[in-house]
């Protein structure tokens, strides 16, 4: 498995990197951990002429507590997130999901920025960040913008990112007190990606669910909010029948776009999505209490 020809740049600053992206716009690809891009290049499914490796840029790997949440540098690896005490205490589901991506070698290399930018239909992090909420900070040579995570994943392997932009940071909001989180994943037996994965962030005040964000990955062509599930949960006391009813709608938004392959039919995927939505909600509720 050998890649086709490419030229390799290793800039040491974001400015230098974004300049290269502008200069070679359309031809250049950002290389982060390389654990999605390089396999595709080896299979010649991706044949970028220019690689801009952002791994040499200092200061893109951090987890920082801010006044109103947490900022994560785009080159922060799964392993760093899984072991970060700030993430463990603020977003247990992110720490937990990061610890369960692939194997240690992949977790040592793969990054939060790469995972979001790649937008694999079965990626774990896109669903988790979608459930937490927040935004993606993208920079070009001249500009900087924040993209709301709800508008970030656009389609299969497609995001709102432009081809001259680099993700530099992910901003996550602080979660209200009384919030519990969970991520529940059913593995595809070969790749160990998610056949379905459900992330739940649920806030409970007194007996009532005051907020709920549920996101599903693996089932459709991109990570998707399960808004009908959220609506059923919100404003109610989360008794087992309510949770069951909410979970049963977890794949509703995906509808006809349910994936189907040799590992799971659409029907089975939908079933698994409901089951794992139930698990994730149960666990998030337990953690909230």
């Amino acid at each position, binding site marked *: *498995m050998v890649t086709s020809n490419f030229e390799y740049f290793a800039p040491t600053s974001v400015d230098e990197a974004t300049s290269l992206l502008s200069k070679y716009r359309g031809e250049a690809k950002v290389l982060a951990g390389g654990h999605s891009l390089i396999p595709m290049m080896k299979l010649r499914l991706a044949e970028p002429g220019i690689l801009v490796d952002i791994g040499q840029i200092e200061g893109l790997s951090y987890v920082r507590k801010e006044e109103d949440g947490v900022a994560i540098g785009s080159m922060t690896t799964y392993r760093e997130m899984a072991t970060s005490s700030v993430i463990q205490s603020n977003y247990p589901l992110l720490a937990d999901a990061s610890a369960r991506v692939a194997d240690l070698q992949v977790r040592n290399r793969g990054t939060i920025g790469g995972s979001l930018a790649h937008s694999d239909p079965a990626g774990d992090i896109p669903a988790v960040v979608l459930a937490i909420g927040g935004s993606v900070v993208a920079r070009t040579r001249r500009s900087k913008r924040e993209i709301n995570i709800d508008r970030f994943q656009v389609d299969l392997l497609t995001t709102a990112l432009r081809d001259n932009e680099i993700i530099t940071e992910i901003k996550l909001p602080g979660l209200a007190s009384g919030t519990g989180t969970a991520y529940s994943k059913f593995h595809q037996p070969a790749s160990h990606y998610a056949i379905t994965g459900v992330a739940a962030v649920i806030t409970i005040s007194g007996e009532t669910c005051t907020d709920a964000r549920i996101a599903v990955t693996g089932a459709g062509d991109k990570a998707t909010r399960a808004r009908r599930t959220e609506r059923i949960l919100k404003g109610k006391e989360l008794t087992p029948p309510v949770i069951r009813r909410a979970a049963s709608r977890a794949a509703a938004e995906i509808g006809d776009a349910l994936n189907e392959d*040799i*590992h799971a039919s659409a029907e089975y995927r939908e079933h698994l999505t409901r089951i794992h939505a139930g698990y994730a909600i149960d666990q998030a509720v337990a953690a909230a209490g």
Partner: protein
Amino acid sequence: MAVATFGESVKRTEDPRLITGRGKYVDDVRLTGMAHLAFVRSTYGHANIKSIKTSAARNAPGVIAVFTGADLQEELGGLPVGWMLPDLKQPPHPPLAYETVRYLGDAVAVIVADSAYQANDAVELVEVDYEVLPAVVNGEEATKDGAPQLHEEAPNNIGFDWEVGGGDYAEAIKDPDVIVVKERIVNQRLIPNSMETRGVVADYDVGKGNITLYTSTQIPHLVKLLFSLVTGWPEQKVRVIAPDVGGGFGSKLYLYAEEVVAGIVARQVKRPVKWIESRSEAYVSTAHGRDHICDAEIAGKKDGEIIGIKVDLYANLGAYLSTFAPLIPTYLFGLMLGGVYKMPNIDCKVHGVFTNTTPVDAYRGAGRPEAAYLVERMVSRFAQEIGRDPIVVRRKNMLQAHKNGREVTTGVMYDSGDYKGNLNKALEIFDYKQFRADQRAARRDGKLLGVGIATYIEICGMAPSAVASSLGAGAGLWESSNVRVHPTGKATIYIGTSPHGQGHETTMAQLVSSELGIPIEDIEVLHGDTDQGQFGTGTFGSRSLAVGGAALFNSLQKVKAKTHRLASHLLEADPKFVTFSNGTFAVEDIADKTLTIQEVAGQAYAAANLPDGMEPGLEEVSFFDPQNFAWPNGTHICVVEIEQDTGKVEVQRYVAVDDFGNVLNPMIVDGMTHGGVAQGIGQALSEQAVYTDDGQLLSGSLMDYALPSADMFPMMELDRTVSPSPSNPIGVKGAGEAGTIAASPAVMNAVVDALAHLGVKHMDMPATSEKVWRAIQDAKEAQRAARATARAAK
């Protein structure tokens, strides 16, 4: 380290080298001026080649040459078949297809370039114009009227019809008391995934006309012989080297197209050439395993007595006959249909069928896993049908223990075994009664637990050459060894088998050490280079120790005899009174008269004082051909839990009691068992090759082909019984395949047992979570329907 003994768990001496990246594999071979090959492969399952345009590729940077199948048709010849059957159809198997491609991945052209990158770039520039033909991938469908035809020589795609049996099954089931249970048994196609893919470096010596092939193979000597037969290259000018080989599981046991092409192309371009198979290529160009579709019947009586088994098997051969393809679904399958049972009547018919898929050949266990799965599934199925416990039924039908040969219904002679002893020992470890109680309690709590028993016997230690030859073998199946003790008393041995993960360097040195009393670190084990030693057959069918170890043992006896005679002479003692132990010759009752084997070796070379007629030096060769195969056997017990919500199966416990005869290195044998069981669990729960109807492979990468991973296995509980094999002088059997053979039926019996109360009677492998979930849904649906009918009737 010191002198090792037989039965000691000596740590693997090759491991420090292999696990620190200091092994030398084919890809580590780098020769001056070496060019690289890349193959253009068919993207269709079945098509005629209308034209191949290579000019763009020829002109691409770094490209030295491009050859199509038509260019090299004469030089390449056809790939050989190493096992004959009566009326076997042998359609030509060109290493590079030139008229028709018959499976996805069939090679049609080869690029030679300065670098692997340039060669692969140029592959994309070759334009092949195909006329796509209808394809067939299913071994049963392919025999039906109107199915696409692969080869003129094989009408209805049938490569052979073969049968074996004993007793009279048709007559036996006429008894009105006999119950016949039928089931369709499918043994799905598997794709071997050795850690190291295949690869070859061909080095042509222009001056001498010699060719050296470095190739990742289990059979360097046979590759030399077959390469020479196919290409007409004089055998004395062919040298084959299997350096470190990173796994094979049977898939590196053939002469492959790429080996022949590399050799011929090296001669054409007068440069060394290298080809390293990519993982994606491996999925389509390395032989697959299993792929049986079978109608099976088992017959017996209400009291549990089994009177026979009947099998009608469609064995998918793939598009061409791979080297040993005719052997695997015939003798290695049919002869095993009695299992460890009396099984007085056996009726087995096998149809070998060509389809538009990658050729199918041996894969760990090769025929025996298919047989054991069928027999053990059917025995449990029968027990379920008559409402009896599967252990009771097995015990009732088991053969008695025997030590020296027992002929069974298929006509073969099992060597030794205590089949009930295996079962009893497994049941000592596994408290069956307690389990059944736990299972009932779990069901009340809505949990699904199941237990599966599988017994097995298998045929390995291939083989008596005369027997094998009478059955169709194209080569002798003996084994060889050379023991050279150096003047300093250290030793170098050359063995005819070569390892691809089994630890020969340790076990063979251990055998030398235990026999000669030479410390194990003083022994060098050479293998896999046809110029370094005598011919050997190779590593497959768990034969390296049972046949190759026996050959080594015999050489060691010759060394012992010679050194004993020489030592007696030097000690001026009657040989009768000279003892040998721990590497030292001593004269009985005389304390200070001793000589070490090292001293004696020195004297053998000094040759100053040799007994009359003794030749100088200390080097012996032996060739060993056993009288019978070796027959490992055992009982495995598996417990699974099934997640109700999702259908996911988890193996909770695994108990294995095996009879491998005498065990030279228990640690290595345990490791073999672990790996074998893991592969069997993989087949039972997750692995499957999936083709579309037109011959595209959907499970063509590690992203979709579900190899088992470590989190699927519990700690295995292993134990053994020991019935030394009378087939060889060291009493060993073989341990390489047993785990794989027993595990898939053990797991599937457990899965069915967990669902039996819902009315489930059989399920095909792999028991994926979706399949199990559906079985649960269907069973519940059936129960609801039954209740509704009952209510309506009231």
